[in-house]
Every structure is written in structure tokens, then in C-alpha cells.
């Protein structure tokens, strides 16, 4: 069926939002929405109905929920996050090994860090290259490895990035530790805070495992022992102003180790 045809999309979306679309038809509709088998006209039509029908909820008097409801949500969330931590243990080990693989790979091929362009996706092939490089790294190559300067893990989340500095201290490389859930129509942006220049934008953080961001360390930062990294939540494509416009999600502690 052609769901771009409004004659099909309109009644389906309306019945779905109202709740009268049931059973297999409802599941089929959800599958269409998730799978992108239809273009966004179906989603747009659904949003139309959700917005309009939600106005009818204005006629419903709010009611305070039982106090134990929040306690139960808190417990459920703890349990979910604990499950996430368990799941993270495997990636955490991988993160550890991935850290040396990153270093070894960069050491074996000094230009490799430059091969990581902003936004470039290199999952899989990058890992293979890095493992091979590690296996053949010499002591001299180890000495030339980049220095890990920060590991930023979002509180209560699996989102984490490893930030390293090239041996000549001119190039920063940021690698995503894991595939992350869709960040939606937003971006997460990395900033460097220095006493001399304030917040300096570094770029949008990658959200696919092994995807990396490589950026020249800005000049004129002053005392490098006073540098901090900060992550902010921004509209898709990053801050339009050159300064954070969304909430600051996290920062490294003072006296970061660049």
C-alpha cells in the first residue's frame, strides 16, 4: 500500500492516535513508523492528531498520583540502570582493550589519527587495523603513542568517549566507546574550557562505536593544566552561536591532564 496517499495515511494515523486501531493493524502501523517504510507524511499526520487530541486532555482535571508511584519509578530506573551497568561491563573491558588498540594503531601508523575525519564512520575496519597494529608495535612505537587525557562518561548513561592527545600534543582524538541510542534531532557538542579563552568549541561528538572526531588543539589556551572538557546538548548540527545554547551535560574535573 502507498502510505504517502493521504486517503490511507489520514484515517490510519487518526485511528491510531485515537486508539481505535487495534491488533495486527496497530502493530503494522507501528512497524511502518519505526521502519521508515513510509515517508514522514505518516509521522506528520500522526503528530497532527496527537497534538490536537491532547488538547482534549485539557478538560481532564489533574490528579496527584500516589506518593509510592515515584518511589517505584525510581526503583525501576535503578534496576534498569543496574542492568545497563552489567551490560556495560563487557563494553567496559572492551573500552580498556580498545584504549590500547587505539594507541597501538596510532603508534603503528602515525598518520592514522589524521585518518579519522570528523563524522567519519569506521566501525569494524578500524578495530581490525588497530588490533593488527598492536600485534606488531615495537617499544619505540609505544613511546610514540598518544596520551589518553580524559574518559568522559555521561552520568547514569552508557554514553562515553575517550579523548586522547597525539604525541606532538597538537591533535585531539575523541572516540565513541559504544553505539548509543538515537540522540534524536539533537547533537552533543564537545567544548574545551581554558582560563585564557573560555569555552572553545571542538566539534560534535560521535555516537557510533569507534566513530571518531579529530581536531587540532586550539592555540592560545594558556596553562594546559587548567583545561577542562565540557559536553553540551545542542540543536542538530551544533550550537548556532559558538557558545553552548543547551544544558551542559558534564565536565571533566578541574586540572585536567593535558
Amino acid at each position, binding site marked *: 500500500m502507498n502510505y504517502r496517499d493521504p486517503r490511507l495515511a489520514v484515517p490510519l494515523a487518526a485511528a491510531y492516535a485515537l486508539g481505535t486501531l487495534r491488533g495486527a493493524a496497530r502493530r503494522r502501523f507501528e512497524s511502518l513508523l519505526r521502519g521508515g517504510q513510509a515517508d514522514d507524511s505518516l509521522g506528520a499526520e500522526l503528530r*497532527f492528531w496527537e497534538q490536537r487530541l491532547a488538547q482534549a*486532555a485539557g478538560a*481532564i482535571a489533574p490528579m496527584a498520583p500516589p506518593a509510592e508511584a515515584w518511589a517505584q519509578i525510581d526503583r525501576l530506573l535503578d534496576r534498569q540502570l543496574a542492568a545497563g551497568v552489567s551490560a556495560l561491563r563487557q563494553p567496559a573491558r572492551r573500552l580498556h582493550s580498545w584504549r590500547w588498540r587505539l594507541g597501538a594503531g596510532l603508534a603503528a601508523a602515525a598518520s592514522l589519527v589524521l585518518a579519522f575525519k570528523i563524522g567519519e564512520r569506521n566501525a569494524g575496519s578500524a578495530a581490525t587495523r588497530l588490533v593488527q597494529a598492536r600485534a606488531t608495535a615495537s617499544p619505540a612505537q609505544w613511546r610514540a603513542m598518544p596520551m589518553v587525557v580524559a574518559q568522559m562518561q555521561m552520568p547514569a548513561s552508557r554514553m562515553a568517549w575517550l579523548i586522547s592527545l597525539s604525541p606532538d600534543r597538537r591533535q585531539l582524538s575523541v572516540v565513541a566507546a559504544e553505539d548509543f541510542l538515537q540522540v534524536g534531532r539533537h547533537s552533543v557538542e564537545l567544548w574545551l574550557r581554558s582560563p585564557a579563552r573560555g569555552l572553545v568549541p571542538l566539534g560534535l561528538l560521535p555516537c557510533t562505536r569507534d566513530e571518531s572526531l579529530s581536531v587540532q588543539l586550539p592555540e592560545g589556551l594558556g596553562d594546559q593544566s587548567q583545561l577542562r572538557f565540557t559536553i553540551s546538548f545542542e540543536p542538530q548540527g551544533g550550537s548556532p552561536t559558538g557558545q553552548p545554547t543547551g544544558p551542559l551535560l558534564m565536565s571533566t574535573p578541574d586540572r585536567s591532564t593535558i
Partner: protein
Amino acid sequence: MIRQDAIERRQLDALLARVAGGDRRAFSQLYERTSPILFGVLMRMLRRPDWAQAALQDSYIRVWNRSETYCAERSDPIAWLIGIARYRALDLLREQHPDERIIDDSEAVLLQLQDPAQSPEAQAIQRDAIERLDRCLRTMREEERVSLLLAYYQGYSHRELAQAMKAPLGTVKAWVRRGLTHLRACLLGEVP
């Protein structure tokens, strides 16, 4: 009565953005500010406090997990939250044994839905953005309006609507279909 001015909306948008970043304090604040709205909707649909509480809990876990998909440019935060709660309530209704479902076909419920201005809380319908919806609902044929309102507020299926309105299933399906078509045209200003 739900009031959501521009400031409130921006604050809710900011809270949702922080929740998307894994901020549990923001999540707690979002819950404090919005859970009475969602619980009111859920109680209206489910009629049982234990079901409404379960649906509320599930809804906020979904909000935590899906906040990254909220798009402030295209959605309204309250509408987005109500959508999550209503869909969860509909899921819950489908999972329950039909015998446990309370089908209220009392005149009182139908009268309340037919004439919302008579109920104090429904005076909210007179306000701002809700006015058009209210006006459109009032231009509809009575059986179409009641079937849509019962489906929305109570989460009734076609079969349950037929039972509540004492009408054949096919007839009720036609009322819902025609009602939605009329409502959409009216909301878009295509009919008076």
C-alpha cells in the same frame, strides 16, 4: 486544568533535554510538574487507581528511555507526554481480561461527554487552543462526537463503544470514521 504558557513550555523542553542527557534530577523535576496531568488522563481512561499507577510508572520509564527522540521543534512537551501515557494505557487495556474492563454506559457519563460545558473541569475547553477543538466537536453529530470522546477519554475499542452506545459494531465504526474525517476538516478550517 492544564496551563502551559510559553515559559512553561520552554522549561519543560529544557527538562526533557536534560533527561535525554541522563540527568535524573531533571527527570524528578519533570515528574513533579507533569505527573498530575498524566495521572488524571490515566485515571479517566483506566478507572482503576492500581492500573493508572502501573501505567504511570511505565509511562515515565518510557519517557526516560525515549526522551532523546523528543523533538521540541515539532512537538509540544505535554502532548508528547500525554501521547506516551495514552498509548501505554491502551496497551494495558488490551492486556487485561475483558471481564475486568468497566464499560460505563450510564447516562451520566454520556451526558457529561455530550455537554462538557456542564462539568467544571471542562470549562478549560473554552480556553485558547482548545477552543477550536471544542467548537469542532460541538458541530459534529451527537453519536459521532460521543463515540470519539469515549474512545479518547475511556480508551474504548470499537466493540466496547458498540456496547456502551448500544449500537451495532458496523454502525459505531462508521461513526468513528466519519467523526474523525469531520473533525480533521474542521480543525484545518475546511468546514465551519
